[in-house]
């Protein structure tokens, strides 16, 4: 009973790992994940890649347009595009 209580599936572990990248996992979820990480190589490998990706994105300081900015750009461009077609 106790074992089941602490056991999480690989899919659930990956989901918690994803949420952790955005600081959205609870302490209890992270605890269960850490138990799984101690013995599951699949979860460990996924977690390592996931952390690496998060680190790279932070390091690169990538940016993108907000939706309203992109819509504004699109509107301006489509006006010009209509003149060319």
């Amino acid at each position: 009973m106790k074992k089941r209580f602490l056991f999480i599936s690989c899919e659930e572990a990956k989901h918690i790992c994803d949420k952790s990248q955005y600081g959205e996992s609870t302490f209890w979820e992270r605890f269960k994940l850490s138990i799984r990480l101690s013995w599951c190589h699949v979860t460990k490998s996924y977690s390592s890649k996931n952390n690496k990706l998060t680190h790279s994105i932070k390091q690169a300081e990538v940016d993108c347009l907000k939706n309203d900015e992109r819509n504004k750009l699109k509107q301006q461009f489509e006006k010009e595009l209509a003149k060319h077609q």
Partner: protein
Amino acid sequence: MANHQLNPNNWIDLYSDYLFNYTISRVNDRVVAQDLVSETFLAGLKSMGNFKGEASERTWLVSILKRKIIDHYRKINSKKGKAEVRMNYNSDSDTEGDWLEERVEDTFEKTAEAKLENSELGDAIYDCIAKLPAKQAEVFKMKTILGYDTETICNEMNITASNLWVLIHRARTALANCMEENWF
């Protein structure tokens, strides 16, 4: 040999974020970056006739953007007398004279090499994002790059929270594999 073709109808969807990221890392101003990207698309539209098809559409647009960025800096630098160097000197007696040493050591300043590497890393990330299905890419960018909360994305994209996490999981898995092949 002309292999590539231009399709301006897709430019905003396919390249606006890549070009914006390329620009903002070089001009550090969101509004200026948007203007330069907009000018790039318009210039691309006007000079479509010059496209030989030897480079990809994106490479061609980036080459126009590079010229726009250079022009932007030329314009700024030509405004002589408006340039100003801002330094705050400590004038209280205890720290007087220390200002030079304080400013010599600039450990937090990024080196040009690190900036270049980060910019290349950013390009590699965008190359991988470009390979994702449109919805995955959109949700991933909103969640990871723009930092929107789950509820906002769900409302904007009209999806449930569990759909969002499925999309995020697929995007992250594909991106991690792509980065593993191309960067790490």
